[in-house]
């Protein structure tokens, strides 16, 4: 049991845990707020607004539970995390979404994601990776487009093929 050791130093409040609890509470409020426009049309039984309220109550209780855990500092220990690679991958995903959104096509989009992820995992040969990524995504595109006849988003590069 966690409370078995009497010589443990007093635990500190876990700030991340407080944020988690707050986010859960916000989610509960959003759920209830969203039900205000729902109309109860069912004569018997429950309408569409009941379940969101039930789930919201659960979330509110869990927000309190998480809050207590955070105050006690009883969250499991965490190792330090390196934010740079995480940010790099997220940039890659953002690039992918932007390129698809602006009609840049599948090959460019996935290549961007490949290169940033590979860099996040410590590769520095960006040019080599870019070539690998372009070749790979072109092959995937051709396989999907010609063999499986699934349509992937097309851009400038795809039209050249």
């Amino acid at each position: 049991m966690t409370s078995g050791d009497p010589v443990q130093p007093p635990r500190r409040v876990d700030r991340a845990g407080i944020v988690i609890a707050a986010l859960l509470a916000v989610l509960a409020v959003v759920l209830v707020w969203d039900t205000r426009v729902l109309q109860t049309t069912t004569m018997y039984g429950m309408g569409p607004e009941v379940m969101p309220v039930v789930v919201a109550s659960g979330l509110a209780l869990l927000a309190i539970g998480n809050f207590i855990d955070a105050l006690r500092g009883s969250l499991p220990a965490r190792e330090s995390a390196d934010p740079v690679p995480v940010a790099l991958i997220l940039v890659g995903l953002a690039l992918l979404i932007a390129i698809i959104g602006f009609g840049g096509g599948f090959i460019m989009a996935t290549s961007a994601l490949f290169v940033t992820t590979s860099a996040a995992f410590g590769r520095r040969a960006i040019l080599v990776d870019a070539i690998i990524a372009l070749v790979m995504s072109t092959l995937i595109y051709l396989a999907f487009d010609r063999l499986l006849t699934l349509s992937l988003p097309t851009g400038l590069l795809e039209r050249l093929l």
Partner: protein
Amino acid sequence: MIDTFAALAHGMAVAVQPMNLLYALIGVFLGTAVGVLPGIGPALTVALLLPVTYKLDPGGSLIMFAGIYYGGMYGGSTTAILINTPGESASMATALEGNKMAKAGRGGPALATSAIGSFVAGTIATLGLAFLAPWLVDFAVRFGPEDYFALMCVAFITVSATFGDSPVRGLTSLFIGLTLGLVGIDKLTGQARLAFGVPELLDGVEVTTLAVGLFAVGEALYVASRRHHTEEKLEPVRGSLWMTKEDWKRSWRPWLRGTMFGFPIGALPAGGAEIPTFLSYSTEKRLTKYPDEFGKGAIEGVAGPEAANNASAAGTLVPLLTLGLPTSATAAMMLAGFQQYGLNPGPLLFAERPDLVWGLIASLFIANCMLLVLNLPLVGLWVRLLAIPQPWLYAGILVFATMGTIAAKPSVVELSMLAGFGVLGFLMRRFDFPIAPLVVGLILGPIAESQLRRALAISLGDPMTLLQSPISATLLGVALIALLAPFVLKGLGRFKASED
């Protein structure tokens, strides 16, 4: 009894059609190839390969699924043994002794005992499934909507609260899943919930998008964030692949015992292969004649948990096929596979599409045999897959993961959701929230709601209907006990600790 044999024989006839054999083979091959990649467990394997089966007919697709499922399980244990990165908690026990064996140059026998143990356990457990399923179906036919609702409550609680480290964190994960399940058009009244005026959200949250985001993107972010802590080391497979006579003698009892732990626990709606694998590990540790080898690579410690893992995987198919109740993340993905064809597993499916259900069960046998034949000779190929440098591996995984979403729905909203679920998965890993309850909540939440509403509509709005049906009342009681038990036990533990 006779009926079961007849049904199974009929299923075999479906499964051995050349096309279906080919689907099973492709499934086994793809499942192993993807499952063997580090950090990819069976649930993600199924989620990633779901789009591949879009264009097949339901029969072929489900048969391919069976192969992917078992292949992914097998691939996961290969990774656990050779680089000590169990893709999921169920392979953790295998990694304990298996990786030690590989370090000691006995990787070959470790892989062999896990392959043969998986085969033995899978075969026995699939037989168990074949005989238990019709019996459960007979029972489940009598279930009314209120009973189904109560049953789902049991599944919700056991998956999230009862067996995890922290009931609060498990339930939090479940309720986030339930929230996501509410998104979209309410099927009974046609009103939009939690869509915030975004048309793409009206169809609800796609299970595959959620699973791929949580598992693939989340895992990549998590591994990247802590790359400076660990260095993975691939153990080469040295020496003979084959087990010695001694190895066989030490393996067969753990295989059978592991199966006995795995199948019943998997078949109960309790979820997860974690408990049986660790039960099997501790049992083997207690019973072994070579206690000093444990911790240094004892073959019993691989044979038992691997068998338990596979048997419980077949066990989770019992509630999935007979009741439509997924009790693990992988089973939830299988349910998503059924739903993509508008099929709902349950007693009705056994009655209406026996060819499908029994074809699937028969394919499990076939997939199992294929794995045994394929994997030992092909182990060199799988090892080479493991040797892909980490940057390219994760870059490739992310490209593959997003590709599925791009192919299914190439919209900015869907891709943003994928990225958002990735961040959620990363945070959940970082703060130690279990992920399976979220997936189960998303897929089971809407079903539970519609069953409850149907029950209340039948009873003209009287909620007492939930307690008037004996089945439902019992199940709700079980759910309540399962919910309170961890808190009570924790309190007892604290009480005891303060007494010391």
